[in-house]
């Protein structure tokens, strides 16, 4: 039964015992075991990434009323492996004018910025890389590496399309980082910690998407912009910049950008699940006496993966439904709407938290939810009046419906 409770610790103990048996000092053996564990985790991630390619292609096909990959294997499942073989044996073309060092470093950093995010993702209470107590800041910090890799790729390619794409993408990414940081502050306030495990545990009995639905929405929008996916894909606008910052990349280097983007979307789906939907918990179901068998490591891992896939699916749904937004509209949307809204939400949350923290969890939850609802209603009402005023500037004052119909 021990293996069911904490398989990671058991495997690590066995490995460390084996290596100390060979005469290795215990500190070194622990380090080697940790290194191997991280290697296995990242290797599993790369396999997941391969299937994400299949998932993305299949889902976009269904959204566009096509079938998608269906020739290789059942449901085209072997297609991504064929894609990888193709990427591996393609010629790697480096433009003669490129800055070689920066050009080659950019795809590696792009992939790395995604993989290191998994250091802080708790798949189960004990199955996580590091339970950092500054995990929320770590998300923002690794995001900066991704931004860096994009500006490196765009600048070093020495291509006008790539440079334009990189500038646009970076402008969008840094702008939407403000609402993202502000919406990361909400779970921090609600749980009193920046650690992912503590945030997950604090979501029993009420997950944070009930306490703060607005924050969950803002985080999703900011995450989609951080990923550079439609409707915020100004950086790689295919119809005008061909492929944006990665236009000069080919072969496996392009593959790294592509796979990195898909894994990034999946990872942010996972963060959405952790921060607002209770992470590896099943919304308190596993705490019920009748369903106690659900409280085990494998169910926890499965729960988080399912939540990440659902988050990823929602991000794809948005991508294939919405049209691309012009860059000035995009930045105005961020700076004139999302940023003030997220700071207003932060003030409201802090006030309600200070006033209601000593009440029972249900009163606390209800007051949080209602304050979010009121703020959301004020915003929608304001937007309605603003857009009506803007429309009247163009069309003249609105006529009553009867008159407009010609009666």
């Amino acid at each position, binding site marked *: 039964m021990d293996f069911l409770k904490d398989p990671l610790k058991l495997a690590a103990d066995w490995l460390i015992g084996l290596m100390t048996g060979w005469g290795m000092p215990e500190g070194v053996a622990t*380090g080697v075991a*940790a*290194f191997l564990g*991280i*290697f296995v985790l*990242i290797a599993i991630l*790369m396999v997941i990434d391969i299937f994400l390619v299949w998932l993305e292609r299949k889902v976009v096909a269904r959204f566009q009323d096509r079938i998608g990959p269906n020739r290789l294997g059942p449901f085209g499942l072997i297609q991504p492996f064929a894609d990888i073989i193709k*990427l*591996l*044996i393609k*010629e*790697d*073309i480096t*433009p*003669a*004018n490129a800055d070689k060092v920066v050009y080659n470093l950019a795809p*590696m950093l792009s*992939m*790395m910025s995604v*993989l*290191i995010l998994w*250091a802080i993702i708790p798949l189960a209470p004990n199955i996580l*890389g*590091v*339970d950092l107590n500054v995990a*929320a*800041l770590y998300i923002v910090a690794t995001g900066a590496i991704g931004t860096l890799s994009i500006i490196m790729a765009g600048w070093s*390619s*020495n*291509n*006008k399309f790539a*440079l334009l794409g990189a*500038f646009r993408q*970076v*402008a969008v990414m*840094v702008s939407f980082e*403000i609402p993202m*940081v*502000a919406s990361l*502050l909400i779970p*921090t*306030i609600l749980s*009193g*910690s920046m650690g992912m495990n503590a945030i997950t545990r604090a979501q029993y009995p009420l997950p944070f998407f009930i306490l703060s639905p607005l924050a969950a929405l803002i985080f999703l929008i900011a995450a989609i912009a951080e990923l550079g996916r439609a409707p915020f894909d100004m950086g790689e606008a295919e119809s005008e910049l061909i492929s944006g910052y990665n236009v000069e990349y080919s*072969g*496996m280097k392009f593959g*790294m950008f592509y796979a990195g983007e898909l894994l990034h979307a999946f990872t942010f789906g996972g963060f959405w699940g952790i921060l607002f939907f209770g992470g590896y918990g099943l919304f308190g179901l596993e705490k019920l006496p009748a369903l106690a068998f659900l409280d085990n490591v494998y169910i926890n891992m499965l729960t988080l993966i399912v939540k990440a896939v659902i988050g990823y699916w929602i991000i794809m749904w948005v991508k294939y439904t919405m049209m691309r937004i012009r860059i*000035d509209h995009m*930045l105005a949307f961020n*700076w*004139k709407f999302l940023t*003030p809204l997220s*700071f207003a939400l*932060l*003030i409201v949350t*802090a*006030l309600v*938290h*200070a*006033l209601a923290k000593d009440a029972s969890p249900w009163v606390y939850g209800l007051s949080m939810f209602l304050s979010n609802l009121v703020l959301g209603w004020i915003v929608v009402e304001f937007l309605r009046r603003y857009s009506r005023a803007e429309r009247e500037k163009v069309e003249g004052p609105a006529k009553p419906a009867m008159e407009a119909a010609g009666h």
Partner: protein
Amino acid sequence: MNQWLLVAFFFIVGLIIPVGAIGVAAILGPKKPNPVKQETYECGLETVGDSWVQFKAQYYIFALVFLIFDVETVFLFPWAVRLGQLGLFAVIEGIVFIAILIAGLVYTWRKGMLEWA
């Protein structure tokens, strides 16, 4: 074991995987460079001039505004973590801090720096 050592391991493994993939591709792929192939891609046209040129100043201004906000919001994290223990006075202080930030945003807005001119 030190937590940050584990994070460093993640950085190392996170670099080994893409370096390995790109390295294998470099060994397996054909290498037949020629001048036409290595030209800068511009839809078949020959590219004119360098692309490392002056660019729109607006990008720089947005980066500047971002920098102010990002540094300031990082100060809010310790406040948010200890909000439960701090009491109402510290909450009001935090809100004053956020209000000063918003005043900065309003100033930038009024100055027309948020327009894509």
